[in-house]
């Protein structure tokens, strides 16, 4: 059923919310400054609640079922996180209040910085970046600022392996670097010979996603980092896949110079239908002075009976500010809650079970789907969604057919180096029963692809709406609701 838009249920004169009448003497805004009409809907509270409740039922969500989207880490979002971020002592604080009145917020943020440093093995952390992509931007800007501070102006290029996370190339060019691709070898690692060939003194750095988007831990990671360091480049770690490494290995120990975290992936904060995310950045000691301002620090040490005073610190060579205020604070509270509940053992168990789930699910599927790299996988794996003896069927059709079995499809067509890629990340919060059920559906679809391909081509059949005409959307570009005629 098609849900009408909020404008279509509007009725002239209906009111959904009333503010109190003014209690001060009236002063009028000059007419010349006033707008004429305000084309907004007129609806009641019941209209609004039913409209958005209906809309919500048209969504798939983690609360509803399994969400094996590769590289997105769609793990369960604990409910306590939501309650925590809404404690009025947090949610009703103004970002510019005097620091003495927000010591609780600042202590929590300081604590989270310390947690992230310890988990990643780095010396300093900023919580400011709004999402992973902004974290990458900050990381690459820091690399640039570092080279500039050494008057090393010849570095104009950033290396991005073909198995890297999708935002990496755009990030590099946004910061004014030329992007140079690095191919993978036959085992899905960065190809060392090509890397050595490309590396010279024009390289500012390498953006490495490890485990990469194939779900593979680079077997030569130490060597890759060493090659880049030898020519004076820095190595950026994309933290999108950190879930596989919690308590298993610390990127700082491996030799990375800078990395970002996705709190909305690894640390269970909700994706919210496309945000808010949060993308803190960690760096080694030699890059700490370049972090965006401000970071949270202790501005007055504790004494015997007085706790320390937390406040804002501007790193001496800061790359500047990348967002207003101090970061996605509500998201930070959720991530803090999650880390605090897990502790070191709990974090390691997250990674172990994420990797266990991924390899187990792979063991159920690999005899029916082509696996391009035959290795032990980390938290995710990539299959080919295509068979030589079922030529009509593509990865997209498999994805759409999965919806009929009440599963969210995997990420498809990424990474680009795998033909008809289906990138599957189960996360640690799924049970064996859930994985078995998903595998059963995937195997059934493999059968259908051969016996009744039309069933896949026309899928989905059981969703609120069928496959949508994307060409028409781009051609007609209807980007706003139809508005009823004004009175």
């Amino acid at each position, binding site marked *: 059923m*098609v849900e009408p838009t909020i404008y279509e249920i509007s009725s002239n004169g209906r009111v959904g919310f*009333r503010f109190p009448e003014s209690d001060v003497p009236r002063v009028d805004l000059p007419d010349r400054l006033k707008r004429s009409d305000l084309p907004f809907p007129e*609806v009641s509270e019941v209209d609004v609640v039913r409209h958005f409740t209906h809309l919500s039922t048209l969504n798939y969500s983690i609360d509803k079922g399994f969400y094996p989207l590769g590289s997105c880490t769609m793990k369960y979002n604990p409910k306590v996180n939501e309650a925590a971020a809404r404690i009025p002592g947090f949610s009703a604080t103004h970002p510019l209040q005097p620091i003495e009145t927000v010591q609780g917020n600042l202590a929590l943020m300081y604590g989270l910085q310390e947690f992230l440093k310890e988990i990643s093995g780095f010396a300093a952390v900023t919580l400011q970046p709004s999402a992973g992509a902004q974290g990458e931007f900050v990381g690459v800007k820091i690399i640039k600022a570092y080279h500039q501070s050494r008057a090393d102006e010849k570095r104009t290029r950033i290396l991005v392996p073909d198995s890297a996370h999708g935002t990496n190339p*755009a990030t590099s060019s946004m910061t004014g670097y030329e992007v140079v691709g690095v191919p993978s070898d036959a085992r899905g690692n960065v190809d060392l010979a090509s890397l050595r060939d490309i590396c010279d003194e024009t390289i500012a750095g390498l953006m490495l996603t490890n485990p990469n988007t194939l779900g593979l831990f680079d077997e030569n990671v130490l060597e890759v980092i060493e090659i880049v360091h030898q020519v004076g480049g820095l190595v950026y770690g994309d933290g999108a896949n950190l879930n596989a490494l919690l308590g298993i290995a610390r990127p700082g120990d491996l030799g990375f110079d800078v990395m970002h975290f996705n709190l909305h992936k690894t640390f269970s904060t909700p994706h919210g239908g496309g945000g808010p995310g949060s993308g803190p950045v960690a760096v080694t000691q030699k890059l700490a002075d370049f972090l965006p301002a401000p970071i949270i620090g202790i501005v007055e040490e504790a004494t015997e009976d007085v706790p320390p005073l937390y406040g804002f610190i501007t790193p001496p060579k800061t790359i500047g500010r990348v967002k207003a205020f101090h970061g996605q604070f509500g998201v930070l509270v959720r991530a803090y809650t999650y880390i605090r509940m897990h*502790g070191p053992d709990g974090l390691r168990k997250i990674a172990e079970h994420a990797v266990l789930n991924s390899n187990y699910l792979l063991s159920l599927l690999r005899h029916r789907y082509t696996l391009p790299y035959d290795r032990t996988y980390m938290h995710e794996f990539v299959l080919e969604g295509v068979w030589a003896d079922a030529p009509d069927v593509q990865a997209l059709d498999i994805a759409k057919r999965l919806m009929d079995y009440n599963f969210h499809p995997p990420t498809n067509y990424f990474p680009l180096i795998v033909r008809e890629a289906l990138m599957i990340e189960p996360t640690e919060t799924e049970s064996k029963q859930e994985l078995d059920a998903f595998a059963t559906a995937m195997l059934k679809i493999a059968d259908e692809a051969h016996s009744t391909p039309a069933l896949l081509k026309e899928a989905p059949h059981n969703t*609120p709406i069928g496959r949508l005409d994307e060409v028409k959307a781009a051609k007609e570009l*209807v*980007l706003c609701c139809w508005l009823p005629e004004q009175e």
Partner: protein
Amino acid sequence: MFIPHTEVEKKEMLKGIGVKDVKDLFTDVPEKFRYPKINLPPGVTEMEVFAELNDYAAANEPVGEMVCFLGAGAYHHYVPAAVDALLRRGEFYTAYTPYQPEISQGTLQAIFEFQTLIANLTGMDVCNASHYDGATATAEAGVMAYHHFRGKRKKIILSPAVNPQYQEVLCSYLCGFEDVDIHSGKLHGGLSDQPSDLGALIDDQTALVVVQYPDFLGRIQDFSSLVYAAHQSGALVAFVVNPIALGLLKTPGELGADIVVGEGQPLGIPLSFGGPYLGFFATRKEYVRKLSGRLVGETTDAQGRRGYVLTLTAREQHIRREKATSNICSNQGLMALAATIYMSLVGKHGMRQVADLCYQKAHYAASEIAKIPGFQLVSKEPFFHEFVVKCPSGIDEINRDLLDMGFIGGYDLGQTHPELTNQMLVAVTEMNSKEDIDAFAAALQEVTHG
């Protein structure tokens, strides 16, 4: 808690994989660095963590327990109960980005309605699915203008009355393009600066002129001659707006804006110490292909049923890769939903009412404060819900004394604008009763006349 595996199941799974121990799955990790010691406090239960968080929260003095006259980019407004009730539906907040439209129509239609509401509020043709906050939306306006002229116009002119943090973020974003030249005018101590002062900076190298409306100091200035001058030289004009003010004020669209950006926090989003907030970005139809970020468009399925999809995705980073003009991927989906619910619920009548309440109360507060000996209302032009007062002593000191009396005072302009030392930016919203305002004026008198 969140990991459902039993020991028996784990054994079965390991057997299925063909390994003995879960440790055997990590042999690709260099042995030397495998299983590092992580020095964190041991994990605790939900009950314990919640108690700890309550302790942190109790160490704050939130605006609810004080009377707040602080704004400067984040505003204390009432959030109707229905907003959070709907936002807490797991179907919304535990969903991913709507890349699979058949099972994401809820998110997609809500964003489509958001785009419509913001376009109508600002008087623009199109709006995207959101940016991180008002500051990054402003920066993206600079990026868009730079690419619109294919890098041939290198100058961006910033009004000095744009939020100083937004100016900083714009500079952080654009300094990657080495040759971009950012100019900003000067504020005058007595606030006698005029938008037309910027006219002298505009030339045929100018890509964009950025103004704020109402500006950082609360003023509603006349931008007509500046907009005319910018357009005469072929430059684009971006307005940074407060969405609540647009419940009353003439739209930037009517005033000639090409781009309208702003901070959506006042539309039903809690203060939450500065985030998550909501950047919005609206523009004219002819620039739609230059917009960064996600866009939702209407279409139909095979049976002709109306539905929504992410459209014009070829502009975005995951398709265009290094040729994309922005790497934005996540937006502020859930915050855009909050604003959509707020704007729908409050509606045509309520948007005017809340804007009017802010305007009335701010003007009452300004007139009361101006009566205090030693205080002077610096704002001479029309203002919306913020105004500047010159105080007889340092703002930092006044604010500390006010805190002891239960007030969060206004923003100390001297921190960011040395020419405005001893001047306070006071924000008033519908949350401040006449009683609060009278008490605040009395407190100001008391702390300065001891």
